[in-house]
């Protein structure tokens, strides 16, 4: 598929497969509660990495550590984009400037702005004009803003939100808001896109759309995606690798097949222990018949 993008949506300078983000043995405490314990993780360029785990496992806390909203007490987080940056203690806006964008579990859009303004505010880090020339809005400042207006039109096109571009975000449906929020993160031209439950609360049709957009962003633009998702069907289908958290600890990591056959993972999810695990998470049964609703893990006992 050929789209006339005016500039790339991806600001990464790494080759596919190179290590982009390294989380090294981080520990995060809230008072006496340990939210994350000794968690290590590696994110590689152009992959889709899913983080799964039961509620309260520390998935969002991990994302918050990466984007600088929480600072872990132990361990470090290193981000590479041609050069290594330790981002463990950085402020959120500094991390954003390095190219890590994210969306939130509970939509955190700027409710009173239009969709266009939300997307444009995503491109904030790239805007250079100074205060004085912005107040005059003449010449270079105007040209810069027109350039970004054209740029966000690409995102509108990619996410198929043409019809709502001048609507106020607060008036949109939940599914569309999730899509706009992803668009806002994309407008940052990120090298890593962190998505916190992008499909929560959606029906199967909306989930399919969302999965398609995520794959588009990943395959056409090579943007690395880290996503938290509860829908096992989607996770198994679209992710290259999966990391599993439980009670703040990482209990498994690997390809969907590896994770599916990992005894710790199965125990965490099903609370059962067996020597061998004849379980299978799949969208399709043995005969290849599609499981249309795609909601939750389908577990086959052989």
């Amino acid at each position, binding site marked *: 598929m050929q789209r006339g993008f005016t500039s790339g949506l991806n600001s990464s300078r790494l080759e596919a497969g190179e290590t982009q983000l390294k989380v090294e043995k981080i520990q995060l405490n809230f008072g006496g509660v340990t939210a994350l314990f000794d968690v290590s993780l590696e994110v590689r360029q152009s992959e889709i990495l899913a983080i799964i785990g039961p509620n309260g496992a520390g998935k969002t806390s991990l994302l918050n550590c990466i984007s*600088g*909203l929480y600072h872990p007490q132990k361990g470090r987080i290193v981000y590479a984009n041609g050069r290594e940056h330790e981002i463990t203690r950085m402020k959120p806006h500094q991390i*954003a400037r390095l190219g890590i964008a994210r969306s939130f579990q509970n939509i955190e859009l700027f409710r*009173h*702005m239009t969709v266009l303004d939300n997307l444009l505010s995503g491109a904030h880090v790239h805007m250079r004009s100074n205060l004085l020339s*912005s107040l005059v809005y003449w010449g270079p400042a105007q040209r810069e803003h027109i350039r970004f207006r054209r740029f966000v039109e690409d995102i509108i096109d990619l996410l198929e939100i043409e019809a709502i571009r001048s609507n106020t975000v607060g008036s949109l449906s939940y599914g569309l808001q999730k899509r706009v929020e992803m668009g806002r993160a994309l407008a940052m031209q990120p090298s890593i896109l962190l998505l916190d439950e992008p499909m929560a609360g959606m029906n199967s049709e909306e989930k399919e759309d969302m999965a398609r957009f995520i794959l588009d962003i990943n395959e056409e633009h090579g943007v690395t995606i880290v996503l938290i998702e509860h829908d096992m069907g989607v996770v198994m289908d679209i992710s290259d690798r999966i990391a599993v958290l439980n009670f703040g600890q990482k209990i498994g990591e690997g390809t969907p097949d590896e994770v599916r056959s990992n005894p710790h993972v199965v125990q965490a999810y099903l609370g059962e222990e067996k020597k061998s695990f004849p379980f299978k998470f799949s969208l399709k049964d043995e005969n290849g018949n599609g499981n249309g609703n795609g909601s939750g893990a389908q577990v086959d006992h052989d």
Partner: protein
Amino acid sequence: MISGIFHSTYEKDMALRRTHAQKIRLVLIVIFILVFPFLANRYYLTLANQVGIAVIGAIGLNILVGYTGQISLGQGGFMAVGAYTAGILTARMGMPWWASTIVACFATALVGTVFGIPSLRLKGLYLAIATLAAQEIILWAVKNWDALTGGVDALVVPNPELFGIRMNTDFNFYWLVWILVVIVTIASVNLFRTHFGRAFIAIRDQDIAASVMGVDLFKYKLLAFAVSSFLVGLAGALTAHYRSIVTWERFTVDVSVTYLAMIIIGGLGSITGSYLGATFMTLLPVVLTNLGRAVKTSFPVIDSIIPFVQQGMFGLVIILFLILEPEGLNKIWKNIKDYFRLWPFSY
């Protein structure tokens, strides 16, 4: 009747006035501003000048409170900084009035920024109390720092002159203040077309999301205080030069509350709303006074209670506005426009 607005270039799509109706309305407003001083008598010119100063102050406060969501009760104090800086520089150091006005704007921006530092930790009502402290500290300094401000005595400012023309006659000052109103309006409207303005609104709507989008909260909150105080300082400096006299009574916490009322009644986060609110709050007491006089001649009996009725009416009108249209005069104005856009087929 129009079915929609369609543009073929991004430049036109991003223009401020996108339809003929909007352009015609703008031209009419400009013509009104140009013709008004030749038709109005001195009394109405005085009112127009007061409204002009209030508009500048209200736009300033709206940038901070309405757009950035940082509630401020320090308006009166910041206006005092502007007025006293301009007054002292002109009266004691013989600086030309226009230069002292510019210095006053920057001085107020600086003071506003300093008092904006608590906003990095405090939000909502807590910040309101912190800015109330700013108001009281500034006013206390004005009243007690006799050597600088003259204390509780009035500070007399020489009449401003430009090429030998006295600028603070009602007619001349009208041009000065309304040219500044136009400049301030254009600048603030432009501000909210750019990433600076969007960052302010982002901080108001979702500050955590804003920081994750790359908005430096520290920098932009202080910038909002600076830009806002700059305009508030301008309003203060203009007051000083217009009245030729600066007293602390003009900058009490009442002023802060009145300005807050202006932007709430006019419409938070709206430049048009700042105009409407400033006009409304400046003219309402005047209208009520005139009404009172008219009533007094017909019913001399109630003469003694008229001042109380006026104050009561003032409060009542404000409360009614807030109940009937919480989004302010700007929303009413929008509804009127929407009605006529589809008129006469408004279904």
